[in-house]
């Protein structure tokens, strides 16, 4: 390649992401116990969060007049807090991923266009390979918090997503699916 002086085509994203993927694979292979412990702790965290929310919301439902209002206000506060935390952490993560990563200088010496390098960084951040990437859904969720302020209980609950879809199911709250309101228990019962 260098001998002929021909310009190589830019390295594909898969090559640029390889170090992170390989590093993760090596860590899993060489320290399987640690990987299992981390997986269990993560699972315990999500299960614990679900149980805590389920308990709290179930308790609120028992308060006839105040229940729905309490549920709504709690979720509003939670979402706004999460939004603020995510916003700050994403700004910090973006800065470190794009500008402060130890390998940025190293990669910029290679014949990789800056645009491709940027794409690789974005991909690794979103996939969580950079360690603290955040999924888009969280941002969308928070950006839609105007709907939460509207005070519609079902819409508020519909903003719950991913693992929290179980909460919606548990309490028979409508879920937003492809822009439509769907009541999971009713759909499954039918």
């Amino acid at each position, binding site marked *: 390649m260098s001998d002929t002086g021909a310009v190589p085509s830019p390295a594909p994203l898969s090559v640029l992401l*390889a170090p992170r993927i390989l590093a993760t694979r090596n860590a899993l292979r060489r320290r399987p116990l640690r990987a299992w412990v981390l997986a269990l702790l993560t699972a315990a965290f999500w299960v614990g969060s679900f149980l805590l929310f389920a308990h709290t919301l179930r308790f609120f439902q028992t308060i006839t007049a105040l229940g729905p209002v309490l549920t709504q206000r709690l979720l509003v506060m939670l979402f706004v807090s999460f939004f603020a935390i995510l916003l700050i952490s994403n700004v910090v993560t973006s800065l470190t991923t794009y500008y402060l990563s130890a390998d940025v200088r190293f990669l910029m010496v290679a014949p990789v266009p800056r645009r491709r390098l940027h794409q690789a960084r974005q991909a690794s951040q979103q996939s969580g390979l950079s360690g603290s990437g955040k999924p888009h859904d969280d941002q969308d969720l928070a950006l839609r918090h105007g709907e939460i302020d509207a005070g519609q209980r079902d819409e508020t609950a519909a903003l719950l997503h991913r693992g929290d879809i179980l909460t919606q199911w548990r309490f028979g709250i409508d879920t937003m699916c492809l822009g439509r309101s769907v009541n999971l228990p009713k759909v499954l019962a039918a």
Partner: protein
Amino acid sequence: MIQCIGLRKSYGALVAVHDLDLDIAPGEVFGFLGPNGAGKTTTIRMMVGLLEPSAGQVLLGGHDLAQAPEAAKALLGYVPDQPFLYDKLTAKEFLRFIGGLYRLERDDIADRSVDLLEEFGLVDRAEELIETYSHGMKQRLALAAALIHRPRILILDEPMVGMDPQGALALRQLLGGLAASGITIFLSTHSLAVAEELCDRIGILDHGKLIAQGTLAELRVHASELPELASNEGSLESVFFSLTGTEGRRA
């Protein structure tokens, strides 16, 4: 092969590199010397595309680094003073990754990796994580990575730092061999003995200005014109101290 034309880097009022002009021929070993803070690393960072010059041009193999960075960088192998390696990869994986960056064929990467790992004495530990390597081993691996795509230009910034005498000797021999094979080498070093032994031409940078460049004989002539060089012994060391005035400043 390497051309710097009016290269300048300034940070506000501070000018780190003053209008530097360099022209290094193919196959030449060029030594880049200067006291600490002279601007060597800044110059090198501009030459490899890590730092945008305030003015001037860098041409690598005839490709303008600003206009055609990929074409210019494809010719380049670079080993910084503190090389970066992915600690959680093995040496083989790291070389495969570098080969991929330069779009080498898979078979070619495998062959080159084996050859380079053997040449640099890393073949026995090729499957171990880089984090377990010593400083010298890491430097050898960084050099192997810089060579995997058969660069036509090799830029080394203080490659001997932290190397044991055996490693330094092996590196000198390797650089001699690479130069003989026609690779253009730009070597920034504090080791005057290495520069004297290996370099065809030497440039001396002081306060961001190229105060002298040429063969050792030419530098001696240049230095002998200075009045304070009455005690010139003819070595590069005495020439260097005379030109930069470092000895006087240190005293």
